[in-house]
C-alpha cells in the first residue's frame, strides 16, 4: 500500500513540476479573479523569482508591523517631465494597479511589480481582455528594486571580503595572507592558474585577471545570496535575464576589443579550406560569434532560475496537497536540491568565467599558434 502511495506521490510530483512550466504562460489570466482562489503554485513561484519594488520579509501583505514586515525600496523613474522618486510603500503593497500615486502631476500605479504611468486625464488603470493596461505606459524605471538592493549587498560583501584580504597581505611582512585572505587566495590562484592562463595564455592573461576575478566573485556571491532563503538575501538576481545579459554583453564587448586580425580572418575566410566551404562557413561563424554570449546569458539565467523554481515547487507541494504529511518529503528534497545548488552556483560562476576567458583567448589567437 505504502509503495503505491509513494508511486502516486511521485507521479503527482513530477506532473506538478511539468505543469508549473505550462501554467506559467497563462498565469496572468486567472489571478485576482476570485478572493479565495485555490493555491496557484506558478503564481507563487513567478512572484518569488521575479523582481519586486519592495522587499518582503515576513507576514501577509494585508497585515502591518509587527505582524508583517516589508522593507520599502526607492522607486526612481525617468519620465517625460524629469526624474521622479518616492518610496515603494506609497503603493501600500499593491501590485494590481489599484493604488494610484500622484507625483509632480503624474499618476503612477504598480502593476505586477512594474510601475506604469497613467496617461493624461486617466484616474484608474483600464485593462484589456488579456489584462494589459490600455491607458498607461511604462516610464524608464531605474528603481532600486529587490534585485538591485541585493546587488548592492553583494558588492558590499565582495568589497568587505577582498579589501580585508588585500589588507592582510599588506600587513604581513612575507606576503602571506591571514584571516579571510587565506580562504580567498586559493580561489584567486585557481582563477589565474586554471582559468586565465590555460585559456588566454601566459603573455596576455594579466590584462584580463581583474575582469575575470570580479566576474567570478560577482556571479558566485550573487548566486549564493540567491540560495539563502531569508531577508536580506533570497533574491534571484543572477537568475534574472537582465543581469546575465549585461555580463554577457560586457564579455562580448571585451572579446571584440581584444580581437586580432586572425580572429576575423578565421571567422570570415577560414584558412585551409576550399572556397565553397569558406563561403558556407562564414555565416555560421558570424552567427557563432553572437551565439557565444547569448549562450552565456541563457546558461546562467536558466540554471539559477531552475534551481529557484525546483526549490519553490517542492515547498509548494505542501500547499498543493494541503497536508502536512508532504512536508517531510518536501523538506528532504529541498535539502537535497539545495546541497546540489551549492555546487551548481559555484560551477555556473566558474563556467561563465571560464568561457569568458576562452573567448578572450580565441580573440587573441595569433596565426602561428593554430
Amino acid at each position, binding site marked *: 500500500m505504502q509503495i503505491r502511495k509513494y508511486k502516486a506521490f511521485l507521479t503527482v510530483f513530477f506532473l506538478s513540476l511539468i505543469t508549473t512550466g505550462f501554467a506559467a504562460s497563462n498565469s496572468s489570466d486567472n489571478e485576482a479573479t476570485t478572493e479565495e482562489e485555490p493555491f496557484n503554485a506558478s503564481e507563487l513561484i513567478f512572484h518569488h523569482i521575479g523582481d519586486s519594488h519592495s522587499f518582503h520579509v515576513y507576514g501577509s501583505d494585508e497585515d502591518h508591523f509587527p505582524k508583517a514586515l516589508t522593507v520599502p525600496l526607492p522607486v526612481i523613474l525617468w519620465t517625460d517631465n524629469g526624474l521622479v522618486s518616492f518610496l515603494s510603500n506609497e503603493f501600500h503593497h499593491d501590485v494590481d494597479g489599484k493604488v494610484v500615486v500622484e507625483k509632480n502631476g503624474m499618476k503612477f500605479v504598480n502593476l505586477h511589480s512594474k510601475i506604469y504611468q497613467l496617461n493624461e486625464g486617466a484616474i484608474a488603470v483600464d485593462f484589456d481582455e488579456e489584462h494589459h493596461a490600455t491607458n498607461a505606459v511604462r516610464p524608464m524605471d*531605474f528603481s532600486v528594486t529587490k534585485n538591485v538592493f541585493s546587488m548592492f549587498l553583494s558588492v558590499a560583501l565582495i568589497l568587505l571580503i*577582498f579589501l580585508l584580504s588585500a589588507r592582510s*597581505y599588506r600587513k604581513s611582512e612575507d606576503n602571506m595572507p591571514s584571516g579571510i585572505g587565506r580562504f580567498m587566495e586559493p580561489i584567486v590562484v585557481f582563477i589565474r592558474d586554471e582559468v586565465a592562463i590555460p585559456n588566454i595564455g601566459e603573455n596576455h592573461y594579466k590584462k584580463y585577471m581583474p575582469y575575470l576575478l570580479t566576474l567570478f566573485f560577482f556571479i558566485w556571491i550573487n548566486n549564493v545570496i540567491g540560495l539563502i532563503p531569508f531577508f536580506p538575501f533570497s533574491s534571484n538576481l543572477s537568475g*534574472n535575464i*537582465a543581469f546575465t545579459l549585461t555580463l554577457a554583453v560586457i564579455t562580448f564587448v571585451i572579446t571584440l576589443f581584444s580581437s586580432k586580425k586572425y580572429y576575423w580572418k578565421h571567422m570570415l575566410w577560414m584558412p585551409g579550406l576550399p572556397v565553397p566551404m569558406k563561403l558556407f562557413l562564414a555565416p555560421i561563424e558570424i552567427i557563432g560569434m553572437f551565439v557565444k554570449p547569448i549562450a552565456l546569458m541563457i546558461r546562467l539565467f536558466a540554471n539559477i532560475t531552475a534551481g529557484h523554481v525546483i526549490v519553490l515547487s517542492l515547498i509548494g507541494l505542501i500547499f498543493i496537497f494541503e497536508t502536512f504529511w508532504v512536508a517531510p518529503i518536501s523538506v528532504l528534497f529541498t535539502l537535497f536540491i539545495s546541497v546540489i545548488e551549492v555546487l551548481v552556483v559555484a560551477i555556473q560562476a566558474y563556467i561563465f568565467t571560464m568561457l569568458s576567458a576562452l573567448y578572450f583567448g580565441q580573440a587573441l589567437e595569433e596565426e602561428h599558434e593554430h
Partner: protein
Amino acid sequence: MDLIKPEIGLIFWTALTFAILLFVLKKFAWKPILGAVGDREDSIKKALAEAENARKEMQNLQADNERILKEARAEREAMLKEARELKDKIVSDAKDQAKVEADKMVKQAQATIEGEKKAAVSEIKSQVANLSVDIAEKVIKEQLANKDKQLKLVEGMLGDIKLN
C-alpha cells in the same frame, strides 16, 4: 513572459555596479593580492633556485674535499717514501763510512802492530847483541882457557839466536 524580458533599470544598475566594482577591486584588491601572490611565488622560486645552487656548491665542496684528501694522502705517501729512501741512504752511508773508518783503524792498528813488532824485533836484536856480547865476553873469558871450546860455543849460540 516577464521572465525573459530584460528590464532596462536592472541592466543599468548591473552595468554601473559592475563597472564600479571592477574599478575598485582592480585598484584596491586584485592588484595587491595578485602582486603579493606573484612576489611570493617569485621569492619561492628564487629560494628554490638558491637551494639548488647551495646543493651544487655543497657537492662541489665535497668533491673538492675529497680531491684535497686524496692529494694529501698521496703527498703523505710520497713523503713517507722519501723518508724511507732517506733513511736507507743514511743507513747505507753510515755503514760505508763505518766500514771505511774501521778499515782505516784496522790499517792503523796493523801499522802500529808492525811498528811495535819492528821495534820489538830491533830491541830483541839489540838485547840479543848485548846478550851475545855478554855471552861472548864470558865465553871469551872462558875461552881464553880453551880456545876450541870457545869457538864451538859461539857458533852454537849464534845458531840458536838465528832460530829465534
